[in-house]
């Protein structure tokens, strides 16, 4: 083939491809997908795969909540996440030894429940005189004029993270306050911690602090069925530092998060991980595995099939037997077995496995096509001129099959993507990567479907479907143009 012919042929092909609407749609989708995959570190969180498995990294996120836009479709609106950093907070020093940090929170009308919890972190303390260590108190001022004491005079250290809604002592304090207002009783906070109601509701007692509470109500009813009290709240963190010259309290990095009951673009999973970031990063693995597996297995299949056809006779018979043996091995059970036995699986190992079990069909078709080409006169001419086997296979037969190869590559991408996702879904995947299959695996393990966490299940599968559809569209268009006669269907 001469270079001019290639250029001419390519031009012709482009002209024809432009007329295939489905092909154009596929190419546009592919460009979009590649852009999403390439820009993942910039559009979401950089080096997400490192952070994905560290549950500490996701502690400031609510757990198992739907995306924020879901509010548009439900009558019971879910509050979004709100975070304050030091420059957005009002920080005052009423006296030399006191620091007051105030965070406003507006609980807008129409929302169903208040925040899932409140997390305060990143307070730095340098302690030189331990006997006069700083202490802190935390309370919530409500729009109805009542104040909920959350923490009373506890010692403050650098490792202090205040987690309203996750800390049993704080939940007990809310309950003590609740019982005091409603039933007028004074409970002992330490004993309240042992109360079954508190133990059962550590995570949900926060909603009582954001609910209508009047004398005469029953505390248990408020806990079980809180009625939202809308308006402007203020969270006050009071730090007492009796020896400000010796012990320093640095609050430059302080972060106060009101955990939402909805989060971001795609919600969160059971560890509070941002599913949107996971989905975006997952596209990388999907595309790379899908393309790599289909390209490799197509190339291997082509070379194998053509070689087999060209050699003919016993060699052909032998090679086809091997092909049949591979083809009759049920691949998924064996893949699962190998994955489970090997232990640590890397992405490249998965690619290798999928290629080993994926080249056979192409080899058989390539062989049947090569058997026809082989009989043509120019091959005979080449042989008469003294061309070697390798030269004839690679120079004369393979190039004729290349157009067919492109369609096959595109059409086998969905299978490879689904296969990788299936393995990850079963827990046999690269543990250091973030993939759609693994997100679905976690969803299955946490019984997301039976709890109705649709935002956790829907997007990864849609991702797989979109990647699949992209390549099917391109593949069928290519197939129509390049192989009008060879089309098998």
């Amino acid at each position, binding site marked *: 083939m001469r270079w001019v012919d290639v250029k001419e042929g390519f031009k012709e092909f482009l002209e024809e491809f432009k007329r295939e609407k489905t092909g154009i749609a596929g190419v546009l989708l592919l460009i979009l997908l590649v852009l999403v995959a390439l820009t993942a570190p910039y559009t979401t969180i950089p080096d997400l795969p490192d952070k994905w498995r560290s549950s500490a990294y996701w502690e400031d996120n609510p757990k198992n909540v739907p995306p924020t836009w879901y509010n548009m479709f439900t009558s019971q609106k879910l509050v979004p996440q709100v975070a304050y950093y030091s420059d957005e907070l009002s920080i005052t020093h009423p006296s030399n030894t006191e620091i007051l940090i105030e965070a406003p929170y507006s609980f807008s009308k129409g929302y169903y429940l208040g925040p899932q919890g409140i997390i305060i972190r990143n307070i730095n303390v340098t302690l030189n005189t331990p006997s006069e260590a700083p202490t802190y108190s935390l309370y919530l001022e409500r729009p109805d004029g009542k104040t909920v004491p959350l923490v009373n005079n506890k010692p403050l250290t650098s490792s202090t993270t205040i987690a309203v809604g996750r800390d049993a002592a704080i939940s007990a304090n809310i309950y003590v306050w609740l019982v005091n207002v409603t039933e007028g009783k004074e409970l002992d906070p330490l004993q309240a911690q042992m109360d079954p109601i508190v133990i059962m509701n550590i995570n949900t007692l926060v909603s009582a602090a954001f609910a209508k509470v009047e004398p005469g109500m029953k505390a248990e009813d408020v806990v079980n069925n809180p009625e939202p009290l809308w308006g402007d709240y203020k969270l006050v963190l009071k730090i007492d530092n009796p020896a400000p010259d010796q012990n320093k309290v640095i609050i430059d990095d302080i972060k106060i998060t009101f955990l939402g009951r909805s989060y971001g673009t795609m919600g969160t999973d059971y560890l509070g991980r941002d599913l949107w970031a996971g989905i975006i990063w997952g596209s990388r693995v999907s595309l790379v595995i899908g393309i790599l597996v289909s390209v490799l297995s197509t190339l291997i299949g082509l070379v194998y099939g053509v070689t087999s056809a060209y050699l003919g006779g016993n060699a052909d*018979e032998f090679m086809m*037997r091997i092909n*049949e*043996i591979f083809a*009759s*091995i*049920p*691949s*998924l*059970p*064996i893949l*699962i*077995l*190998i994955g*489970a*036995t090997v232990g640590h699986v890397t992405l490249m190992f998965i690619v290798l496995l999928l290629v080993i079990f994926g080249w056979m069909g192409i080899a058989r078709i390539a062989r049947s096509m090569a058997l026809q080409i082989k009989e043509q006169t120019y091959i005979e001419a080449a042989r008469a001129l003294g061309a070697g086997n390798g030269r004839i296979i690679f120079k004369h037969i393979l190039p004729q099959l290349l157009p067919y190869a492109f369609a096959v590559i595109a059409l086998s991408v*969905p299978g490879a993507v*689904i296969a990788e*996702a*299936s393995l990850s*879904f*079963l*827990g046999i995947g690269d543990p250091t990567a973030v993939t759609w299959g693994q997100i*679905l695996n976690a*969803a*299955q393990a946490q019984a*997301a*479907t*039976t*709890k*109705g966490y*649709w935002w956790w*299940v*829907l997007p*990864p*599968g849609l991702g*797989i*479907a*979109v*990647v*699949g*559809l992209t390549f*099917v*569209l391109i593949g*069928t268009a290519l197939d129509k143009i390049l192989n009008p006669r060879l089309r098998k*269907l």
Partner: protein
Amino acid sequence: MGYLKYLVFRILNAILVLLIVTFIISALFVKVAEQSNLAKMNDEMMQWDRTTGQNILRTQGQDAYEKAKAEHEQFLREKYELNLPYWQKVYNKAIRTLRLDFGTTTTPIFGTNNVSDIIKVAVPRSILLFTTATIIVIILGIFLGVRAARHAGSAFDRGLSIFALITYSLPMWWTGMMFLLIFAFKLGWFPLSSMFDPQLTGWEHVKDVIYKLALPVLTYVFVVFGGWAWTTRNIMIGTLQEDFIMAARAKGVPEHKIIYGHALRAAAPPIVTMIIFALLGSLGGAIISELVFNYPGMGRLYWVALQQNETNLLIGLTYFFTVLYLAGVVLADMVYGFLDPRVKVGASAKM
């Protein structure tokens, strides 16, 4: 004779594959079992040392103790097959597997420890699920495919093609998860778990099974029938353009007789092979789909075995998957050779 020879050849081929796969499974698992067996042996050795060993040491002295210890170790090595070289063990395991002697599991499943019995419970359930689903798919697929081919280019035809392309890219198990969310969680039409109720018998049991089967079958049909209809359509469009159809039309044969009598019969061989390969292909999807639906068939069992590290059960199940798969392959070859004389001539001509 050509057909019989061809058949024997295919069966021999399948047996060869079965042997190879059995050796692969054995090689994999002997490696895993080696470590756990060594740990088990050391445990038992220590146990022996604390009780019997110390006793011998006190009553009969050092020499007798050393001798008894060596003897007991030898006994344990034989018990756990640690005295044999690796390949000998692989060979033994493979032979036992081929004889359907899979051994036992550590914890009982379906009320028994015997791997063969466990598999005997699970296999019919999986087959029930996929046979039902595949029959529905075949009927729907062929009917809709033929309809689309008759009205090629119509809105129905184009709609079907798009539907087929989309469902081709869907993982079956994910669709299952979505169906669970929609039909079981949100609408409550189907159960969230397809685990059978063991208390029911007779007609109640049948009703329970049908109710639990409904959603998995629906999922399977939904994902698979589009591709089926599309392929049938493509084959039929090709056949409808052939000369003998033209001739039949010219003779004035009624249209539905042309379609179902002439064209579909001519298109049968590829469609029948498709049926069998669809069944085979569903095996892989089945493993995960059953897990998603909590359906108590082979697929879910496979996963349970994987989670609980029941190597004997894993070997047994993989062996069974392979046998089922190969039986399907042979069946496909058989039917294909029967329907399309060119195949057996081609293959037997080479022999």
